[in-house]
């Protein structure tokens, strides 16, 4: 099983990409289907395994994903290069506009330097680059203990400047 970085630690990955399946009919509990294939027949794909997610390119429109959000338990956004930035905005749209609560995964050229930014945009798991160490990537989630921007998951999601006047709740 692949090592997966999550915001809770380095864990074995339960999910399998369609391309990694031994055969088209092989049994699987957690299956990630490329978005182009999933779209051809969403209902059928959802019958294929108890848990079905999709992998999407970073330039996928939020509005295209919106109608499918209820049936997805994982969305993996691809980062083909270290400077890919669209996935950060797509993640926030999924979380904040789409109220998507399933697993949000970043995959591709992910290094320790990206981790905290990704996590603060709503990602909770990370398939890091083959040239990155999962443990180092996980440790980088603690490289900053402060931030200026409000985050949905923080209990009092208010901007830091406002926290300052309501002494740091």
């Amino acid at each position, binding site marked *: 099983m692949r090592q997966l970085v999550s915001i809770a630690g380095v864990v074995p990955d339960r999910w399998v990409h369609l391309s990694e399946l031994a055969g088209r009919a092989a049994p699987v509990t957690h299956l990630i289907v490329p978005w182009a294939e999933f779209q051809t027949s969403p209902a059928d794909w959802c019958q294929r395994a108890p848990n079905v997610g999709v992998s999407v390119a970073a330039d996928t429109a939020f509005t295209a994903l919106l109608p499918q959000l209820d049936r997805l338990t994982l969305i993996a956004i691809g980062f083909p290069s270290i400077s890919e930035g669209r996935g950060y*905005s797509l993640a926030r749209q999924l979380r904040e506009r789409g109220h998507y609560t399933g697993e949000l995964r970043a995959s591709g050229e992910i290094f320790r330097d990206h981790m905290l930014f990704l996590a603060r945009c709503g990602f909770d798991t990370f398939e890091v680059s083959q040239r990155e160490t999962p443990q180092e990537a996980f440790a980088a989630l603690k490289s900053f203990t402060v931030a200026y921007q409000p985050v949905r998951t923080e209990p009092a999601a208010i901007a830091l400047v406002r926290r300052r006047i309501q002494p740091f709740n």
Partner: protein
Amino acid sequence: MYRYDVIDQTLVRQRVAQFRDQTARVLAGQLTEDEFKSLRLRNGLYIQRHAPMLRISIPYGLLSSLQLRTLAGIARRYDRGFGHFTTRQNLQLNWPKLEDVPDILAELAEVEMHAMQTSGNCIRNITSDHLAGIAPDEIVDPRPYCEIIRQWSTLHPEFTYLPRKFKIAVTASPQDRAASQVHDVGVHIVRNAAGQLGYEVLVGGGLGRTPILGQVIRSFLPEEDLLSYLEAILRIYNLLGRRDNIHKARIKILVKAVGIERFRAMVEEEWLAMDRSALRLVPAQIAYMQSFFKPLPYESLPAAEPPSAADAAYQAWYRYNTRAHKVPGYRVVFVSLKAQGQAPGDATSGQMEHIADLAERYSFGQIRVTYTQNLVLGEVRERDLPALWQWLKASNLATPNIGTLTDMICCPGLEYCSLANASSIPIAHQIWDRFADLDYQYDLGDIEIKMSGCMNACGHHHVGHIGILGVDKSGEEWYQITLGGSASEKAALGDVIGPSVPKAEVAATIERILNVYLEQRTEDERFIDTVGRLGIEPFKERVYAAAGEHRRRRA
């Protein structure tokens, strides 16, 4: 001025630790140069012609004496004893060693400074009016809003890998002293008809290869919605800005491609759909930021008389290098970094220390950096002016030329920058030497010369009254001249007058242009207005007629 609290201090220290790790990884070969590039750029570190170049952030151009003294010390110990103030109100060091940079950043962190986001494809240093808080014509002090934007934009998780760099300028006066129309976003603090404070927001301005003036995306945004609206603009840009071609990646290209109407519709849709509450500015929060920029403890003083004609040199300095302050008895003093023979915008460590001392003695310990590459002591008692003038003269910082021909904006050019096609600094020297007579400069009046060594336009040549662009023609340096540009509230892009001229001919060409002005101007008409009235034709004719004559004589 704004002071760091424990949160700000923690953040910059953690950033230094992170960069130290990144530097160690590249030096140990664990990161490729290419991977390190996108990381170091986010800390202001370029690899330039001779050495790394470190660009240090000066938020909205405001420095304390302690900070300026620290910059002077860093320039002396880690560099060659001088620094270069830029058109983004920042400071560049041209010769630091890569392995020293983490230590430099650590020293900066101890005086509440950093180099975050002074380069790279992220939100850059927020710039503003260098007369913020002291300009008689301002609606409010824009700096609290600048600081709010600075904090929001610092290490913003969503906007750290934008298609391209993103520059924001904030002004709060009818007079635009921050070139806001040539920024990716220009924020104008205004009052609406009902007297409420808010913002006119411009988007899609910029210079570079494709100069465009910003267009109004919102004529009035309520005060509380500043950050959420900026976030909506940035999100649309981040999602839809081009990433396939670096020269077409700025927001101006996106706005031009879809049109301002469509762009506005997309931003408004995102803005209305997003959760705006978390970013809503509440009055107490704005008041908290304003508490850092309260009026300084001014004395109650009578307004002094302007100097008598007795001392012509002092009178010239007073006239050109000082401006009105909104408090009676005080003046704004410009420290000219444009002396003859000096690279425009450069200051030595000794000069920086001297200015830091003078600011402590005469101007509440604060210094402002202008985007035109001078410094300002903003709060000087009129009765202290003669003494301050003497001290500034002693360090070659009192050249009475602010707003004149020799107060040129100039990029580092071929001497330092690896992007440059041609030099800028030697051209500045050439112009200075040809027009060294100050009385001639005074007779010409307000003229803005802006010069870039390549089409990236760091020297803002498109918006110079006279713009000079260095180009490479089969290995030789040539210069293209534009006329009629302006970065003021009446912003305009200059028109190219014709084929570029050889390096040795730049100052002579400018003289021909100025001669047309001197012959054609009406009483008190400024150069830019004469160009506006006549168009570029008469200037063009004179320049190229002379060039034709020159060629015929040689033949």
